[in-house]
């Protein structure tokens, strides 16, 4: 069952994309067929992982060292759920902005489905070169979606993203080539067994990690992200911030904690942690001075991604749980924020902060979603974001790493500052400056999509036990004991 389910999880959306291109008349139906069965399909793999822990399948019947294998472990399962859950809810929103039967929809949906499929393929893959191909597919589909409306700012942002992404892929590819030369295989688990630490594999790993840091927009390689995420169409911004940048962080984790598990690289770990810390500070401060709502949210992503790197210096059971939980809850919260921002932008015609005064009365659902998601981003209880940050604090406390402890706490304060700035303008501003521009309303389901995601980010604070158990079951080798 699991093998069939996993195959369909990757290929069903791809086939649906093909059908839309082949028969545009069937596009509404194929969008549904490509997305809605996915949660059901995920059931069998979930049971498998709960039961057995890890599931591996050799594609085409050829296992490593030559063939490509898919490996489903608790971490990749959680990534599949994150991608599926968020994609489906964001798709609900996108089906209003890009109706499948319309001209715009026929451009949007094939790329959207390919993006979805390629991220599923990425988190399943255990093969370094196959990861490269899936990552290229993710990047091209994502940039195609950023520029799908042809707005000048989005075109420019997409171009910059594309050039940097191509550079990043080359660095990653060079590392893959070197590791193959050293080990005669591309399987990331098998490489871990075969490789001995020396300057060549360390260089290869560093090249790959630098490439992936560019793709995940980690400070100081973040320059492309705010423009790209801030100017993309609403649903695209949501998926970019919630999932697309995360999959390359996921790849860094895989390389670091699985392939290079036995290597003693404390200096590099510290460096990565410092980059993360710098990202938190810089992203938050930059978010404080932005004038557009979507740009604030985009810079917030730069900051929140920084937390995902704190797992390297704080390496341990707690920190890993914290980082994975941060990835999941930030995904939900950030998708909610971008969708709410898209609804506001649609209704008001601008997302400049000073024009948003008093919209809480006109768009209560969206403002509520924004606020709820904000609670999680700030790390206030009770929310998924709170739990993630609490686990980080606990991890830092346990290791007596006071610097990191202060950083995590301060990061929360900064997030509160930039989000309260938004909420203050939206809710408390005395002047009412509405009605100068268009008075379009977003359809209610589009607002509900944002609200559901925001509620998910809050609920993640309550129903955390099964997820945390799952993360514990899938701790990387070597971290479990600490």
């Amino acid at each position, binding site marked *: 069952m699991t093998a069939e389910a996993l195959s369909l999880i990757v290929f069903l959306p791809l086939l649906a994309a093909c059908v839309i291109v082949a028969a545009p008349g069937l596009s509404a139906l194929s969008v549904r067929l490509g997305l809605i069965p996915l949660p059901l399909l995920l059931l069998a793999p979930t049971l498998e992982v709960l039961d057995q822990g890890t599931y591996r399948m050799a594609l085409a019947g050829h296992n490593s060292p*030559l063939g490509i294998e898919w490996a489903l472990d608790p971490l990749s399962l959680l990534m599949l759920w994150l991608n599926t859950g968020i994609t489906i809810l964001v798709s609900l929103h996108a089906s209003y902005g890009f109706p499948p039967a319309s001209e715009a929809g026929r451009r949007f949906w094939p790329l959207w489905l390919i993006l979805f499929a390629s991220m599923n393929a990425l988190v399943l893959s255990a093969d370094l070169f196959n990861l490269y191909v899936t990552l290229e597919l993710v990047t091209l589909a994502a940039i195609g979606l950023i520029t799908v409306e*042809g707005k*000048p700012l989005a*075109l420019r942002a997409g171009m910059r993203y594309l*050039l940097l992404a191509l550079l990043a892929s*080359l660095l990653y590819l*060079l590392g893959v*080539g070197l590791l*193959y030369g050293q080990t005669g295989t591309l399987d990331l688990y098998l490489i871990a067994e075969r490789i001995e630490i020396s300057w060549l594999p360390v260089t290869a790993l560093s090249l790959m990690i630098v490439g992936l840091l560019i793709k995940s927009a980690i400070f100081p390689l973040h320059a492309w992200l705010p423009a790209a995420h801030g100017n993309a169409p609403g649903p695209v911004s949501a998926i970019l911030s919630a999932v697309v940048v995360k999959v390359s962080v996921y790849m860094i984790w895989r390389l670091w904690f699985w392939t290079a598990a036995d290597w003693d690289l404390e200096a590099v770990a510290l460096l990565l942690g410092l980059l993360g810390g710098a990202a938190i500070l810089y992203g938050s401060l930059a978010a404080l001075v932005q004038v557009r709502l979507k740009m604030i949210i985009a810079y917030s992503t730069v900051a929140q991604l920084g937390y995902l790197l704190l797992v390297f210096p704080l390496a341990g059971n707690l920190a890993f749980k914290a980082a994975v939980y941060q990835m999941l809850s930030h995904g939900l919260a950030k998708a909610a924020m971008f969708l709410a921002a898209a609804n506001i932008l649609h209704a008001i015609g601008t997302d*400049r902060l000073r024009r948003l005064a008093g919209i809480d009365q006109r768009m209560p659902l969206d403002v509520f979603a924004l606020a709820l998601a904000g609670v999680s981003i700030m790390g206030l209880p009770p929310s998924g974001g709170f739990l993630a940050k609490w686990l980080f604090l606990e991890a830092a406390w346990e290791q007596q790493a006071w610097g990191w402890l202060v950083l995590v706490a301060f990061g929360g304060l900064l997030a509160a500052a930039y989000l309260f700035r938004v909420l203050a303008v939206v809710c408390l501003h005395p002047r009412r400056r509405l009605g100068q521009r268009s008075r379009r309303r977003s359809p209610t389901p589009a607002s509900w999509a944002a609200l559901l995601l925001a509620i998910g980010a809050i609920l993640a604070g309550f129903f955390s036990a099964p997820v945390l158990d799952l993360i514990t079951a899938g701790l990387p080798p070597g971290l479990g004991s600490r």
Partner: protein
Amino acid sequence: MADLGLYVFAAALLFGIGVYGLIVARHLMRKLFAINIMGNAIFILMVTAARPLDGAPDPVPQALVLTGIVIAVSATAFALALMVRLHRETGQVSLSADNESGGDDG
């Protein structure tokens, strides 16, 4: 078979030239030349980094490079389309003068 050391040397030079081009070139198409040249340098290294089998290069890296070439062409084709559209909308073919955070709608 040829002296691979010479080609590794060529790859290093090409990579350096590509990096230089990527930094200094203004026109987007030249940046694409630069990236493609860097790509070729890396393709050479991927093949030379693996030990030959029976005197011929290992087929696995060759297959990977073949895939890499097709991906590079795809990405280049998309980048060119993006460049043409960018030029149509803004009249510019470079990224130097930008103002990303501005603009009313995004």
